[in-house]
């Protein structure tokens, strides 16, 4: 950007004034107070001050430039060239504010859009212009002072610039970091941000019950405050709850005291009377009971004696009657027992007869002996064995003949028989042997090896012996013999049985004794039946027993009465006395006030009264304790309310959140600072020292050499003499300051597009240095526009005219 003209209409002291700036090196000169500063400020405001200002900002920024005495607006029109295009910038502040930026074809009217577009064209910030590219006398003076005063204390040009411009144009990283670290420490000290709790000490929590005492950061302080407030809130709430609990206890105790107090108040006065009533109430029934007993004795005594006497008379008669009845009962028992004896004797007689008949029957029966029966059985066995042998030798025969022929056939030992054999065969069987005779021929066939004849002989002999035995027994067969033997054995058994029955009936006594007994029984007299006797016996017995019991009872009563009262006369006297006592007691009871409902006796009432008094006393003691407890709690509570503390806790929480956010913002700043430090290198002032040295050398005509400590000029070496900056002359300092300013400007306007403004920077220069500086400025102007303000004509001349400079 290169400025071409400026018009102030109005601005400050100028109602309407214009300057042509369309040259690389513009020298604005004139005496003091002519308005150079006004022009410079007009240009600055035109470029950087928006027109949509708040009243306050307007007053601050433009107020000094409103025309006196009562101007309400200021306006500047600036023309300039940028990238080959001519632009017109019009601004009006105060009344009717307006911004307009136009290149002849397009136009911007929105103040913010205008500023944005200008910022693009200017390429550098307002601060860069103010602190680097615009250099007034004041800035130069400050640069000189800074160099002198801070010699050795400044690390780089940024410090120098900051110090020189008296503005935060930049900051020393180390200083910032130190300050930031302090802030982070101040915020986070003793705070564990990861746990969001106080730092632990040896694994122990350091909460509000065990707080850190030293080095407490802002966050922890706010947290402690918050937690303390929360704890206070809970503590108050706890006390309030405790008050509730004790308050309820107090209410319960008060209620109990009231109940007992009411009872005591209502009934306490009756206490004495009711104590007597208690005694009388106990005595009255006792007296009544005693009188009743005496009355009973008094009336019962003679009656009892009479009863005893009467019984003594009746008793022998009853005893006699009882004796007779008992005899009758004995006879009746004997008769009943005799009836059984008679029946038994009848059965004995019958059994005796049956037994004797059976004995006789046995004697009548004939019977073979066991030996005979054994022989018969042996013969039967032998006969059967021979018959079986022959049956086993059975032979079959068959005779055939063409013509009928008579054949005699003998089968076994049987007699021969004749059969006729013809064409039709004749056949049959025979046991042991068969013999056929016909026509003079005898054919004998025998079965088995031994002789058949012996078998036939044995068989015949045994059959004969058997027949003889049977005949001797008088029976026809062996079976009959066995039958009669069996019958005989049965008769014998039957006779023995009957004899045993008979013996059983005798019950061990001889038949004759039974007969004699039956004769004695027949002599006992007749009685009533047993039941009738027993009934009468029971009645009479009962009569005797009850008479005896009653007499005994009467006797006992008399013994008891005698013991208690001695005799009936004494009893009468005692009765009269006791009745009098009872009457007096009843009358006294009537005179004493009655009992309250719910009490059976005065004693119970008095006990209740005493109990109520004791309970009231105990409750009053308890109440005193509870009230003291409540008073202590109330005192602890004071005028604190949990609701109020809750609000305070909320405020403390807000403060903690703010402190925490602030601490984290510091951490964020530090992180960003670290990042920037790691990527630094884009600072236009990075290669600053070379330029300063070059400028200084040219201004001083190479008579002096500048030495640097880092980027900051540290010494000036002239003719082997080394001078620290603070020892430089005013001219030397001025040269160094100009070199610094121009070097900085050159660094920023490296591409040549832009301008600088200088306000009489050469006032302390001698002619030589003035010439050198003017030359440098003219050369500078060939790349970037220079607007130079001066009140010195010769400065203007030398800058505007190289010839003049030449002359000088």
């Amino acid at each position, binding site marked *: 950007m290169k400025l071409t003209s400026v018009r102030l209409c109005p601005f400050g002291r100028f109602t309407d004034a214009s300057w042509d700036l369309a040259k690389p090196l513009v020298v604005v000169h004139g005496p003091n107070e002519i308005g150079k500063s006004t022009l410079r400020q007009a240009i600055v405001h035109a470029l950087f001050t928006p027109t949509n200002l*708040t009243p306050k*900002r307007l007053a601050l920024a433009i107020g000094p430039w409103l025309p006196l005495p009562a101007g309400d607006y200021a306006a500047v029109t600036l023309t300039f060239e940028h990238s080959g295009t001519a632009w017109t910038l019009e601004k009006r502040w105060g009344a009717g504010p307006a911004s307009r930026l136009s290149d002849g074809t397009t136009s911007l009217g929105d103040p913010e859009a205008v*500023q944005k577009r200008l*910022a693009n064209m200017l390429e*550098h*910030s*307002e*601060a*860069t212009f103010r*602190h*680097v590219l615009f250099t007034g006398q004041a800035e130069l003076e400050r640069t000189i002072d800074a160099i002198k005063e801070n010699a050795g204390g400044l690390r780089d040009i940024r410090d120098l*610039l*900051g110090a020189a411009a008296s*503005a*935060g*144009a*930049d*900051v020393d*990283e180390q*200083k*910032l970091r130190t*300050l*930031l670290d302090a*802030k982070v420490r101040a915020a986070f000290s003793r705070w564990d941000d990861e746990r969001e709790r106080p730092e632990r000490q040896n694994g122990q929590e350091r909460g509000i019950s065990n707080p850190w005492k030293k080095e407490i950061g802002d966050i922890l302080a706010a947290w402690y405050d918050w937690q303390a407030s929360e704890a206070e809130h809970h503590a108050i*709430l706890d006390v*309030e*709850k405790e*008050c*509730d609990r004790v*308050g*309820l206890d*107090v*209410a*319960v105790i*008060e*209620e109990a005291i*009231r109940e007992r107090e009411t009872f005591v108040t209502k009934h306490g006065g009756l206490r004495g009377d009711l104590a007597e009533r208690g005694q009388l109430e106990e005595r009255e029934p006792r007296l009544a009971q005693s009188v009743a007993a005496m009355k009973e004795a008094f009336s019962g005594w003679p009656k009892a004696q009479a009863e005893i006497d009467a019984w003594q008379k009746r008793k022998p008669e009853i005893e006699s009657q009882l004796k007779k009845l008992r005899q009758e009962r004995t006879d009746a028992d004997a008769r009943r027992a005799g009836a059984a004896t008679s029946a038994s004797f009848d059965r004995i007689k019958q059994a005796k007869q049956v037994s004797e008949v059976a004995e006789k029957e046995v004697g009548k029966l004939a019977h073979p002996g066991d030996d005979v029966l054994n022989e018969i059985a042996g013969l039967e066995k032998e006969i059967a064995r021979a018959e079986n042998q022959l049956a086993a030798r059975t032979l079959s025969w068959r005779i055939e003949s063409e013509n009928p022929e008579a054949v005699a056939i003998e089968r076994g030992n049987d007699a021969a028989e004749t059969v006729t054999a013809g064409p039709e065969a004749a056949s049959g069987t025979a046991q042991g042997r068969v013999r056929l005779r016909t026509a003079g021929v005898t054919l004998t066939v025998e079965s088995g090896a031994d002789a058949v004849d012996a078998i036939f002989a044995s068989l015949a002999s045994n059959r004969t012996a058997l027949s003889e035995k049977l005949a001797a027994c008088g029976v026809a067969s062996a079976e009959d013999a066995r039958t009669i033997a069996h019958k005989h054995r049965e008769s014998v058994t039957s006779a023995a049985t009957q004899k045993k029955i008979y013996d059983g009936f005798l019950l061990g006594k001889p038949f004759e004794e039974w007969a004699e007994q039956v004769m004695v029984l027949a002599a006992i007299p007749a009685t009533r039946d047993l039941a009738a006797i027993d009934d009468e016996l029971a009645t009479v017995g009962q009569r005797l027993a009850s008479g005896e019991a009653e007499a005994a009872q009467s006797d006992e009563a008399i013994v008891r009465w005698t013991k208690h009262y001695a005799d009936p006369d004494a009893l009468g006297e005692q009765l009269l006395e006791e009745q009098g006592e009872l009457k007096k007691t009843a009358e006294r009871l009537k005179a004493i006030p009655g009992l309250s409902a719910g009490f059976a006796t005065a004693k119970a009432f008095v006990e209740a009264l005493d109990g109520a008094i004791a309970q009231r006393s105990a409750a009053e003691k308890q109440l005193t304790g509870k009230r003291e407890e409540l008073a202590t709690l*109330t005192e602890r509570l004071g*005028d604190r309310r949990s*609701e*109020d503390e809750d*609000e305070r806790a909320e*405020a403390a929480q*807000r403060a903690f959140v*703010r402190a925490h*956010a*602030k601490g984290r*913002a*510091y951490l*964020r*700043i530090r992180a*960003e*600072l670290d*990042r*920037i430090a790691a990527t*630094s290198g884009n*600072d*236009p*002032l990075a290669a600053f020292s070379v330029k300063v040295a070059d400028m200084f050398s040219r201004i001083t005509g190479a008579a002096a050499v500048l030495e640097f400590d880092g980027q900051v000029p540290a010494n000036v070496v002239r003719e082997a003499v080394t001078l620290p900056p603070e020892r430089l002359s005013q001219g030397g300092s001025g040269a160094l300051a100009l070199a610094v300013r121009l070097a900085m400007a050159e660094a*920023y306007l490296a591409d040549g597009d832009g301008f600088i403004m200088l306000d009489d920077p050469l006032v302390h220069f001698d002619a030589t240095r003035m010439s050198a500086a003017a030359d440098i400025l003219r050369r500078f102007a060939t790349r970037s526009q220079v607007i130079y303000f001066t009140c010195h004509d010769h400065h203007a001349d030398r800058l505007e005219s190289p010839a003049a400079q030449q002359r000088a």
Partner: protein
Amino acid sequence: MPIRIVHTADNHIGLPFKQYPTEVRNRLVAERFAAIGRLVEMANAREADFFVVAGDLFDSTRVKADDITKTVGLLSGFTGTAVIVVPGNHDHFTGPETEVWKRFRDASAAASTIDILATPAVKSYEVDGQTVHFFPCPCPSKTGREPTIDWVAAATRDHADGLRIGIAHGNVTGLGLDAAAQYFNMTPAALEASGVATWLLGHIHVPFPTFESGTQSPYFMAGTHSPDSIRCRHAGSAWWIECEGHQVTRFERLSPGRIRFARIERELLAADDITTLLAECRALDAPATILDLQLSGRLAKDEQASLDEGIRRLDDTFLHVSHENVIHDRIDAAKIAETYRSGGLAERLITALLADAEHPDAATLAHELIEEASQA
């Protein structure tokens, strides 16, 4: 004729307001009485039958005797059938010896229309031939886990005739925050199942229903008659309730309060924000408003000065102004350009931080740090 009830609660007579300067405190204390007086006048003007205080008429059980006498004097002005006062948790009733109620009873002995219903027992009235049963559920302590209303469901069955109205004091689940359930918490379901036409409740200092008028509501939360803290931002509340037969037929919110509390939380980032804020403040009834400003943000120096001046002026007009302001110097691209040379550490640092929305104050703090470092 409908039965007409004025329902108030949480009057907290005797609340000390000790966090405020004397003059303000006196105004606040006096206003609590004055608002009761106005509410009684409203009730009389509308010919209310009952004036019901559903708990916390007093701030504690140890209120000064003068305050009690003064309160009784105001309530005695009610011309309807009865003023019904039920103890709440702050002025809970533990027995006849409870100081505040003993004094209140003594002071109101001559006022036949004031009834303290300090025990859970039905109280019935006859109004123009209509029977009205009140079911009072007083608090026996300041805190309590068990609701006080459990007995009502059974009792309503024995009082089937007439209008049935419940009166209780405590939190209602969903209406107020009582995470620890220590303020006689009641559930809406339990309230609705108790068999009364409606419940007149107190405790949470804000009114329910949230609308100004209507025809039906199972329960009413009175809200305090005159706001008493910054948490209470309504104009003071009470209910006008009309009942016919066995039910509520109409209700309307009354506003007897004259002092308001207002908290404005605002982030200020530009001059316009200040203008808007101050306009909003000016729209309030300043002489009757306790204003609490919670301001944060980033402003230019001149804007901060303007804000300070604005607040100072508010201080002159408002009843009371408190503020917890955290305003930083605003730093923006223009400010950076104006202040820091291009490419320098400061310019790069602040520019980078300015883009960090997560730490909105970081750029401002960095700017302040750089200024501090430069002056060191």
